[in-house]
């Protein structure tokens, strides 16, 4: 234990160090992704196939949402299901017919859990049969706590959704990217030059958006609120870049076409499986960029997209500077303060990078899992940011051990600990400022426009405690002295 804490206090190295601990940490179960995805995909219904434990987690973690007649439900496994006295196929059919009758969704998502995993329920196999009988597509995602943490649940769902995206017809897409003058055809004869039309109907009846921009189709992936979709769209449009589609789209029927000529770029750092599915299954080209969190990340993200699509970025440097200028009142609060990420939602590296750019010192980046290839650009930007700001490289701890982390927190006494709700109140009682990490998952934090919202979250405990500091009560447990450090 002492060796653990000593390494934490060791002098900074000049490059990033990735460590791995025991994996005894607190995080949400990945099935929680249901809560934001059912709202995002408006014509969907999510069925979580699991036990009372899963249901209890969902109803408590999602609080009041549960009372708003959500488009999700539990298929609660009973003892007869576990001991195979009942047939999974029959049972699922019965429940899904009920859902079809009551809600009539255009797509069903089945979320596999630990239990279906251990029982080796063939959800994919059953879904294939059942979707024909029901006439509703069924997407199966195994978002379980055996394999994944929290936000990775969305990754499993989106990776499964990639399969449902229609394939681009290479002939059609070729026709679209070839300059119109060279392809005089029916469309041109009838409607004039192709480049002028916004939308055309091709033979199969699929709507294809003709890119006004002179670049290959770009698909973004990651679920964000429609406001953020609009903001990022506006941002890219300014650079003359059109977004062909999003995964997930607002409706299941609006999923973009995918194929070898399509470029894909992520907005969240936890979507490595989806990225892999896009590359391997759909042969898309991945744009590996830092993530659009904070003005620095957003600029780097747009630049990387521009660079890949051969577009000259314009006005980005000024735009970033203007955003930073507007953040000054918050930056004053955070400069020189230290942060410790306990780690639970995979946003940690990107957030730490932004906070270092804001002038903070990051001691530790706890993170459930890091895909070094997928996060390559983000990690590079983090390293560069540390060098630029002249601060030590934080240690990155994968699969952290919360107990050891708390020992380290006690020694380092950081100004802010970003942590889950299980540890927030006990740490506050010991005079340590905390911010719940979950809020970063639910708040709108992407793009230039929302940089302020990240700092709003980060500074909230600092601002709150400043207003309470005159009272002189810093700790609220009996075995500690009033004044720590």
């Amino acid at each position, binding site marked *: *234990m002492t060796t653990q804490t000593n390494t934490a206090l060791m002098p900074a190295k000049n490059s990033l160090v990735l460590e791995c601990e025991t*994996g*005894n940490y*607190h*995080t*949400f*179960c*990945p099935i929680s992704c249901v809560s934001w995805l059912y709202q995002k995909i408006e014509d969907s219904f999510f069925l979580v*196939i699991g*036990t*009372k*434990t899963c*249901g*209890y*987690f969902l109803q*408590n*973690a999602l609080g009041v949402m*549960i*009372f708003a007649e*959500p488009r999700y*439900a*539990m*298929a*609660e*496994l*009973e003892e007869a*299901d*576990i001991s195979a006295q009942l047939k999974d196929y029959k*049972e*699922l059919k019965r*429940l899904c017919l009920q*859902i079809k009758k009551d809600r009539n969704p255009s797509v069903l998502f089945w979320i596999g859990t*630990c*239990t279906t995993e*251990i*029982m080796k329920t063939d959800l994919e196999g059953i879904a294939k049969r059942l979707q024909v009988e029901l006439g509703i597509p069924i997407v199966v995602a195994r978002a*379980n*706590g*055996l394999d*994944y*943490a*929290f936000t990775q649940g969305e990754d499993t769902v989106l990776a499964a959704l990639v399969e449902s995206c229609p394939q681009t017809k290479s002939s059609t897409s070729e026709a679209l990217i070839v300059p119109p003058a060279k392809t005089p055809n029916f469309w041109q004869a009838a409607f004039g030059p192709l480049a002028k039309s916004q939308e055309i109907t091709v033979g199969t009846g699929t709507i294809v958006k003709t890119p006004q921009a002179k670049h290959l189709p770009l698909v973004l992936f990651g679920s964000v609120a429609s*406001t953020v979709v609009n903001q990022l769209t*506006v941002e890219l449009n300014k650079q003359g870049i059109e977004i062909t589609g999003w995964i997930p789209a607002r409706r299941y029927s609006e999923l973009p076409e995918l194929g070898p000529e399509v470029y894909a770029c992520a907005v969240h750092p936890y979507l490595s499986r989806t990225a892999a599915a896009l590359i391997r299954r759909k042969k898309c080209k991945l744009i590996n960029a830092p993530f659009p969190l904070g003005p620095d990340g957003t600029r780097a993200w747009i630049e990387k997209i521009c660079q890949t699509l051969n577009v000259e970025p314009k006005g980005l440097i000024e735009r970033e500077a*203007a*955003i930073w200028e*507007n953040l000054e*009142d918050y930056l004053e609060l955070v400069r020189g303060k230290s942060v410790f990420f306990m780690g639970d939602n995979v946003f940690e590296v990107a957030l730490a990078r932004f906070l270092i750019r804001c002038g903070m010192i990051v001691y530790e980046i706890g993170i459930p899992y890091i895909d070094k290839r997928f996060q390559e650009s983000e990690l590079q930007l983090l390293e560069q940011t540390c060098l630029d700001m002249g601060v030590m490289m934080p240690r990155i701890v994968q699969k952290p051990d919360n*107990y050891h982390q*708390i020992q380290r927190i006690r020694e380092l006494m950081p100004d802010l600990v970003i942590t889950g*709700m*299980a*540890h*927030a*109140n*006990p740490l506050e009682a010991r005079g340590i400022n905390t911010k719940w990490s979950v809020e970063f998952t639910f708040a709108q934090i992407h793009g230039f*426009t929302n940089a*302020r919202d990240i700092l709003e979250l980060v500074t909230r405990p600092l601002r709150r405690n400043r207003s309470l500091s005159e009272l002189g009560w810093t700790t*609220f*447990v009996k075995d500690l002295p009033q004044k720590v450090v």
Partner: protein
Amino acid sequence: MKLSYWMYSGPAHIGTLRVASSFKNVHAIMHAPLGDDYFNVLRSMLEREREFTPTTASIVDRRVLARGSQEKVVDNITRKDAEDVPDLILVTPTCTSSILQEDLQNFVNRAFLDSKADVLLADVNHYRVTELQAADRTFEQVVHFYLDKAKKNPNWKVEKTERPSVNILGMFTLGFHNQHDTRELCRLFKELGVDVNLVMPEGVSVNDIQRAPNAWLNIVPYREIGLMAARYLENDWGMPYTTTIPMGLVDTAQFIREVFGHLRQCSEEYFDSDITLQTEEEIEAYIDNQSRFVSQASWFGRSIDCQNLTGKKVVVFGDATHAALMTKILSREIGVRVACAGTYCKNESDWFREQVHDACDEILITDDHTQVGDVIARIEPAAIFGTQMERHIGKRLEIPCGVISAPVHIQNFPLGFKPFLGYEGTNQIADLVYNSFTLGMEDHLLEIFGGHDTKEVIEKSLSTTNGLEWAPDGLAELQKVPGFVRGKIKRNTEKFAKEQGIQKITMEVMYAAKEAVGA
């Protein structure tokens, strides 16, 4: 398989964890996948707990699936033993470990050899028992274990306390108003001249359990947890127990009489009568004084206000204890007509029926909230007394609801003193009932007379004729802003547009305004 959206009681391991974390210096280790430690969040948030919740998980991952937990559980136990030096480590199975069917008892036995702490495997089956049943069983298991352990010590013997004393069984973490009830019961016993020997499991060290048989009597204030332990203590240690629940004026009085009946018996059995218990007349005088003058509830029941409640229809739903007692209070002490009384504690259905059969029109035993909702919609009561779920059903149907039972939200863990038991409890309940109804009446009047203020609400806006135009995409974006800040965002955007000399507000202008104003 069962299609379910919501449930009244949680999975079994939650009950076990609630008991384990109520004891002092007991650590629970769950055999569970990542993310199942949500209990820590509940405790930390709802109870606003200052201490780290003494629960960790021995994580079940792919590797465990492939080759079994092997050393992992044992290592986690010995590690926790060294780190926190607990008195007891309670290994808690979950739904996952139920199907894995690993021999957890074997791991426990092995760890027991090396660790300083005692190690126990919670004896609960995920698929057969609910949260509350599991809590009841785990509590009995721990009490049983420590009394067996005490028996082995030759120097240990049961010495009844000199003065009459009781144990209060079943007070524990995340219980509905449990800490307030504890305080109220302790105060009641103090007034009665009876000592409280132990309150269990909340706040008690497992090493104190061996003092349990020293009390004269066990009190089980709630139906759901504590009964198994009380029965064990009666069978093995000859300790009597009460099951009357001291909630409401009539039952609190009955409870006091019962306690004294038992104490008097014990006193004859164990001691010569040199201990002065109050006489029967004194007890009745105490009850009468409390009921008429200390508690305001009996006077409230007689007051004009309460007359207005006569015959009003209500629906009561909750755990067995609170739903049954609330039904009795409403019909007997307030004169309200309980059209339907129900509970989700299916295993207590016989007891529940017996308690309420002559206090309500119909009885509902179900754990399906849609069924409860249907019954409420059919009856159209003037008020509901139920859980948070019934509060939401009430919201939808515009019927006021008083929350009387778990499952609950953070607002049901009040900082102020709000017991449901004892004489102060009767006051709190009267307030709750009265406030629910008056709110309903106000609402009704508002509807008849069309609200307090019929004048058109003047919108707080910078200017109505500012010559600005909202483009459709800007307007659509504005609609997405939550209602309570929409006005502010609108004003800020318009102010920004004016400053910039922009006439038409598009989506982009909105974002630019947000960036500039920082709203």
